[in-house]
């Protein structure tokens, strides 16, 4: 494989991190359990499951249209508030976002199974700071 075009421009030591994060350029939340190449298994307009190209097992997911979900459902029901130091930190629950995304589409068996599988695989208490959810 050829030399990376960004070689020498990166700092820090690479270390895979399995945590959900907000991608501001795509207005989506991404989560990947293992560091492997994946193929997209699109469930609907809001959810895509990532399957390992090595053995087809689900290894992550993408929630699209985060701003649209927030506009539709409001912060209430999505936000988990917690105390941090002197102030209050608002964070968005990834599972609450998944539930909201599910409510947005038709209640079919296929969708229910896919969303249930994703919720089973996602960390139950993962949240993303609300202040991070700003599209670029």
């Amino acid at each position, binding site marked *: 494989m050829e030399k990376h075009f960004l070689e020498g421009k990166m700092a820090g030591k690479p270390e895979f991190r399995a945590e959900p*994060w907000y991608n501001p350029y795509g207005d989506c939340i991404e989560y990947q359990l293992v560091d492997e190449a994946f193929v997209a298994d699109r469930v609907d307009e809001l959810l895509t499951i990532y399957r390992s190209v090595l053995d087809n097992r689900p290894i992550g997911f*993408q929630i699209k*249209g985060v701003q649209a979900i927030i506009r539709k459902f409001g912060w209430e029901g999505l936000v988990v508030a917690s105390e941090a130091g002197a102030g209050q930190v608002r964070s968005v629950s990834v599972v609450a976002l998944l539930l909201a995304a599910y409510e947005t589409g038709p209640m079919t068996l296929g969708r229910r199974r896919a969303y249930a599988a994703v919720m089973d695989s996602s960390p139950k208490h993962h949240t993303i700071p609300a202040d991070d959810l700003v599209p670029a």
Partner: protein
Amino acid sequence: MSGGVTNLADDFSCKTIDPNNPHGPRVDAIFPGDLTLRYWKYSPVRYWNLIAAKFVLEHPQRVFYGVREYNEGGWCYTARPAEWYVKENVVAAFPKNMVLAVYLNPNMRVYLCRAEFAAKDDPMCPVDWQNRYRGLVWKSTS
């Protein structure tokens, strides 16, 4: 960007087909510095597959517009690289039944690169492309 990634890396641009004027001069597609830095630090396989993403942008076979229902605009460029990373330090031939899709937002910022199963009617298109995208902007004739 979330997750403690600060924007220390510079944006990187490469030339690609202008989706608004496919037969005109090529334009810049931008890999945002904070996104590539996140990949470098936390998703090494994605970082290394930016090589394949750059190949797709420089040698696209199909370009689609209207890639999201809930976000206006955006583009999807597809092609088939010869190889890619499947695990850290493990390079393999790119699967014959897949196509690599690189997604750009309306500001021509790359935000995602991933494999998609190829459509049966056109192996350079992602499966169900007729329903997923608003349309095909450009198709390679080579």
